[in-house]
């Protein structure tokens, strides 16, 4: 798997602009060009199509200024710069409104995976369009019957000459209602063990035969979607990677996802980490009743703990990402970041409820966030899956017994419930 800086050495040669010169140029350009940050835009339950249109518009501005896709290679519409340039840029972006929505999954997961597995034609066609803000991408991986077991996909792609016919259902895709393209994992061979009969395809989201429904969440938002596929025709030129080797593509995609969600992705643009744009600590102090309330030692310790977690998260991302780049840790180590992020998010959520006291019952914004506490521990692979990955693939402990190993997929048992 190639998610370390090796993939994105757009240029380490002498022609690359010095980081401090770049920083100065970017600072000047940002101040002259980008609008000021809008508090809480694109956060919480705001899932309207307008915020996505706004993100695309902002991305076009960045692209026109030469600040889109900093670490992507020049031949695919990027700037061919290094992670150090991207970091310098991100540190400057706090005061400005940035198209952060496009980071996940479009830049950090989908474009990154395209870079790893796309044919020259696929890369030239899609990566520049993603970096221009013209194409928003989504991943169609999970299925109603599958849960964490992605390799059990039952959506079928049946070969018919030089194309495939797609039938089935996917779920938990983020913002598919605004997406242009998707990567979809489908079963192309039912007579081999489950990991060996899958193929990844590129499909246009809005076309005959694909129905996209939005799923309402407990906080009232409807960002997640479910999709139904009926006789959708996909040309074989839209296979990503090799036929029946879709699991290899999916595994890399998932590593990019963990890295993105955990905050360690080199492709994140416009923020030092995805969630650090707001001021959660100021919010916690407000929940506690303002600075004076922190004279209470217990409340102070809770706020201090939240600050601690924020600091630790930032430095852990830097440390683990650096160890991965040096080859001391391999790609599965991004599960460490993912698990830290999810567990510290849980803890911070509990802290906010305790700080609010009885207000936790009446504050609807806080309530919405608390009711969604576990989402971060589920999306992109549950905490339990991360713990399996860390113990088995980072620490080398024995793997769980698998009833599905070396058994042809069609002979396996399946869930009876429709959404697991």
């Amino acid at each position, binding site marked *: 798997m190639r998610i370390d800086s090796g993939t994105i050495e757009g240029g380490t040669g002498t022609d690359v602009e010095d980081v401090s010169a770049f920083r100065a140029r970017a600072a000047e350009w940002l101040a002259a060009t980008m609008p000021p940050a809008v508090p809480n835009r694109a956060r919480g339950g705001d899932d309207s199509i307008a915020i996505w249109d706004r993100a695309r518009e902002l991305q076009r501005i960045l692209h026109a200024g030469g600040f889109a896709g900093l670490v992507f290679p020049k031949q695919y519409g990027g700037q061919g710069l290094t992670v150090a340039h991207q970091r310098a840029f991100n540190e400057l972006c706090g005061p400005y409104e940035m198209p952060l929505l496009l980071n996940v999954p479009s830049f950090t997961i989908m474009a990154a995976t395209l870079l790893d597995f796309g044919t020259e034609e696929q890369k030239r066609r899609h990566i520049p369009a993603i970096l221009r803000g013209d194409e928003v991408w989504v991943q169609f991986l999970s299925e109603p019957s599958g849960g964490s077991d992605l390799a059990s996909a039952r959506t079928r792609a049946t070969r018919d000459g030089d194309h495939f016919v797609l039938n089935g259902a996917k779920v938990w895709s983020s913002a598919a209602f605004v997406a242009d393209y998707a990567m979809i994992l489908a079963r192309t061979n039912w007579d081999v063990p489950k990991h060996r009969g899958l193929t990844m395809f590129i499909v246009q989201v809005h076309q005959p035969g694909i129905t996209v429904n939005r799923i309402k969440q407990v906080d009232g938002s409807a960002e997640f979607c479910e999709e139904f596929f009926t006789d959708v025709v996909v040309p074989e030129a839209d296979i990503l990677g090799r036929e029946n080797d879709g699991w290899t593509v999916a595994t890399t995609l998932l590593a990019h996802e963990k890295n993105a969600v955990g905050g360690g992705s080199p492709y994140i643009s416009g923020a030092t980490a995805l969630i650090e744009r707001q001021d959660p*600590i*100021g919010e916690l*102090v407000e929940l506690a009743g303002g*600075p004076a309330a*922190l004279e209470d*030692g217990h*409340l*102070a*310790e*809770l*706020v*201090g*703990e939240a*600050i*601690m*977690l924020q*600091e*630790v*998260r*930032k*430095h*852990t*991302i*830097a*440390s*683990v990402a*650096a160890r991965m780049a*040096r080859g*001391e840790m391999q790609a599965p*180590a991004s*599960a*460490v970041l993912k*698990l*830290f992020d999810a*567990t510290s998010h849980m803890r911070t959520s509990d802290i906010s409820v305790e700080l609010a006291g009885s207000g936790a019952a009446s504050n609807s914004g806080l309530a919405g966030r608390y009711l969604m506490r576990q989402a971060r521990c589920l999306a992109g692979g549950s905490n*339990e899956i*991360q*713990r*399996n*990955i*860390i*113990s*088995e693939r*980072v*620490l080398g*402990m*024995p793997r*769980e017994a698998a009833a599905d190993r070396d058994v042809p997929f069609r002979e396996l048992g399946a869930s009876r419930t429709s959404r697991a």
Partner: protein
Amino acid sequence: MICPPDEEQRIFLDTTLSFLQRTCGTEAVRALADTPAGFDRAWWRQGAELGWTGLLVAEELGGGSVSGAGLLDLLLVAEQLGRHVGPGPLIPTSAALAGIAGSDGAARHARTIDAVVAGESVLTWCAAAARGETGPTLSGGGDGLVLSGTAVDVEAAADADVLLVSATSPDGPTQVLVAADAPGVTVTTTGSIDLTRRLGVVRFDGTPIAADALVGVPGGAADDIARQRRIAVVLQCAEAVGAAERVFDFTLDYVADRFSFGRPLSSYQALKHRFADMKTWLEAARGIVAGAARAEQAGGPEAERTVAAAKAYAGDVLPQLVQDCVQMHGGIGVTWEHDLHLYLRRVSFHRALYGTPNEYRRRLASSAAA
């Protein structure tokens, strides 16, 4: 490694590592536990000759770093010392020496600095007062300065030759150097949870302080004291990471070798998930301690916050990690015979000294409220 060594640091680290491997096996550490000082002065001198004591001291004062970033050099020593649960006053000596060598008018303490850097003289730091007390207080003026009061939790108190005392005075926080055998100084050794690191109470009873014993400007020591504390915290956290990582490594081996109900302990998902949590704590502790060391080395305004977060986090999760490893070992884990307690003692010692995790959380909150 918490911060990966560069080429020069690598050579320095290798020398230190082979010295520790030769001299600090757990048998040797256990033998030191039965000695009054808990460390051998000749051994400490050898450590000083390897460069441990001069890293935070400027070259013109007889010190010098390996890489240009002395605290990051010293971090490597502390981490390995933790892995070996090695003895010696590395932390109080380093923190106090950094304070003296970094203070205004440091040159007047050149002789003391020389002797400490050479390992001939043992320096410790009287940093803390008992809860609810003010601790050592300076009174009088000019050549009539007098020190009175009690410092607690002083590492290597009974074996130090020189004490850096952080005192209160009418002018504000002031630091002075006091010879351990000066009039009115009484040292009482207390218990210590660590096997080789000794703690003591130092009582000053009208100890006369000459004007040239002042470190820095009278009343102006607050920043020096804060920096010394941050250095002590960074180094103790590095030792704790080293110790906890060693325990994690051998516990991972242990559960792979040990069979229960016909299969290795390491194959049980209930235990695997706990190792995944421990690995996460360890990587997070390593990350925040690296961040804290770099911030302190850089000397910017984030140092206070980052170092506080390091102690608040590592101070809690590392003892928890070692306790969990005791649990993974079963009954053997709470025996004197098994080495686990050496490491548990060390991480618990560091949790308690120079401020507890909750104290640092309150500090973090007060900076947010300010």
